């Protein structure tokens, strides 16, 4: 028999209100802008789906989207394996554990714009430590403001430096949760270190790694501050990622309609990829 108890709604209501005010209502204003044109003075004209059509056919958007996927793909390819390797080589017991954990957590505690500014100064060709070392000491031409390759190398390195720790800490949490008996059984079964990784450590880390990859995907796909402070999207448009392009359109050109349409598409892509990835990764567990 099913009993109806409507009291539950009273407990859900506060959350519903909160979500409405901090997510749904602001988003609805974006939806509102995305189908209109304005020339200021709070005067709006109906445009329908024009901004969406224009955007989806624009080379500028395609290029920014491509750069965004390239950036996210590269940092995931580097941070995930690197994070796992570091987590594997960290001590599981003893006095060095807290030291390692604090060292790992440090980069993540630094505010994003400070990270950008730090790396900006660090790489200045004349006075920055890295810039000076590369150009003067080693004789390798390295100038972010001139070479797109140098700019890309720097934003990737910066992100790896800033966020590999997240993968490390999550993987480490997964590793320490493996009971000793598993390693002992593997020893007795004569398993090689690779097999221990493949059949014990990796399966036990799967869930935390899914979360780590998901978080890194969302964060890096939406990255703005660090890259903006470091390169401003340059040289040229070479490091103009989606978010940087969006801000240029919205605040630089004050094209509120196209910017709103772009925001919605941007959001939809992030959501879609995250959902696809999470569904695929957890498909087996549900069975």
């Amino acid at each position, binding site marked *: 028999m099913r009993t109806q108890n409507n009291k539950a709604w009273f407990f859900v209501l506060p959350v519903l209100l909160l979500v409405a005010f901090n997510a749904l209502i602001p988003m609805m204003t974006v939806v509102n802008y995305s189908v209109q044109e304005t020339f200021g003075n709070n005067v709006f004209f109906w445009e329908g789906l024009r901004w969406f059509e224009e955007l989806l056919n624009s080379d500028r958007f395609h290029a920014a989207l491509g750069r965004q996927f390239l950036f996210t793909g590269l940092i995931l390819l580097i941070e995930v394996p690197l994070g796992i390797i570091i987590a594997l080589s960290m001590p599981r017991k003893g006095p060095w554990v807290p030291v390692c954990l604090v060292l790992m957590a440090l980069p993540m505690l630094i505010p994003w714009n400070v990270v950008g500014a730090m790396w900006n100064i660090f790489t200045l060709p004349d006075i920055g430590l890295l810039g000076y070392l590369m150009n003067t000491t080693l004789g390798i031409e390295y100038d972010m403001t001139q070479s797109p390759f140098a700019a890309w190398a720097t934003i990737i390195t910066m992100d790896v430096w800033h966020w590999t720790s997240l993968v490390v800490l999550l993987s480490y949490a997964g590793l320490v949760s493996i*009971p000793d*008996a*598993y390693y*002992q*059984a593997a*020893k*007795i*079964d*004569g*398993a*090689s270190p690779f*097999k221990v990784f493949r*059949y*014990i450590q990796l*399966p*036990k880390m799967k869930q935390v790694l899914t979360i780590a990859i998901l978080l890194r995907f969302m964060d890096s796909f939406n990255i703005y501050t660090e890259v903006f402070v470091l390169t401003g999207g340059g040289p040229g448009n070479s490091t103009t990622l989606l978010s940087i392009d969006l801000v240029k359109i919205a605040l630089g050109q004050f094209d509120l309609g196209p910017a709103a349409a772009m925001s919605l598409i941007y959001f939809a892509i992030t959501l879609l990829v995250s959902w696809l990835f999470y569904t695929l990764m957890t498909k087996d567990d549900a*069975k």
Partner: protein
Amino acid sequence: MAKITLSKLRHSYMANPASPDDYALKQIDLDWSDGGAYALLGPSGCGKSTLLNIISGLLMPSEGQVLFDDRDVTAFPPDQRNIAQVFQFPVIYDTMTVFDNLAFPLRNRGVDEARVAERVTEIATMLEVTDMLGTKAAGLSPDNKQKISMGRGLVRDDVNVVMFDEPLTVIDPHLKWKLRSKLKELHQKLRATMIYVTHDQTEALTFADQVVVMQDGEIVQIGTPVELFERPAHTFVGHFIGSPGMNVLAAEMRDGGAFLNGHHIALDGAVTAQEGAPQIGIRPEFVQISDTGLPATVRKVADIGRHSVVEAMVGDTAIKAITEGTAPQQGAAVHLQFQQNQTRLYRDGWLATEGRPT
């Protein structure tokens, strides 16, 4: 299969052990004969898991040697000792199928696939898991997972000893019985040396031919289940085995006899030790409530189904007796009689009466 000898084994988890209390294992000398079924019984923290890990090679003893068939293997890592161990919590490789799980120890040793398939099928039939061979091991119930981890130990036919470290801890009570008899059956079929660690006396007594009782890092007694029940070498064994455990009663020695609360108690056999605090040990099973004998007052009666446990006071001493049929009322004045051939004297905890030749 092999005979296993532990010679002058001592182990401490401290870097510089000074007093005997620093040792988790204090001097163990023990022979496990080939093909025997042994149980290692003792309360938590008595050192039984330490001893097991030393035999399997997961732990290096501080002192002493481990010999397999008179060959010193003390310095060998686990995979070179050809042993198998089943742990408290089932260890299975989640991403593999049941078949691959069972095949894992063989494949790691480079056994050819035909032989692997043959052995896996054989073991799966014995464990009655043939219908699960194709399924992922992750979704199995705890008792089936534990069967698979046992199977991984038994699949190698050259294994020297199979060790079980409290393997039924996470198994539902009604399945424990099944799994335990399965294990006994496997032992009879495979004739492998098996060592079963547990703190549960029922598990130990049903599984093993020989039970090794440990306390505080020492072996207190080795014997068959009957020996442990009838002639506990130490009051600890008396307490630990049996439900309820042996009555251990402070006694007085005078005129060559034992006295309890002023009443003479007839002992089984001659007294062999004259020193140390005397105690009389008798199991509740051998205390009868009758019309004559030691006068006592019933303090508590617990009906545990087929029989009742009566707790009676003789002076300040509580004595437990097991009675079949109608038990006396609480507060009733009764008389207790000790069955003489089961009444033993202990001095400082150790058995101090001769055994009658049987």
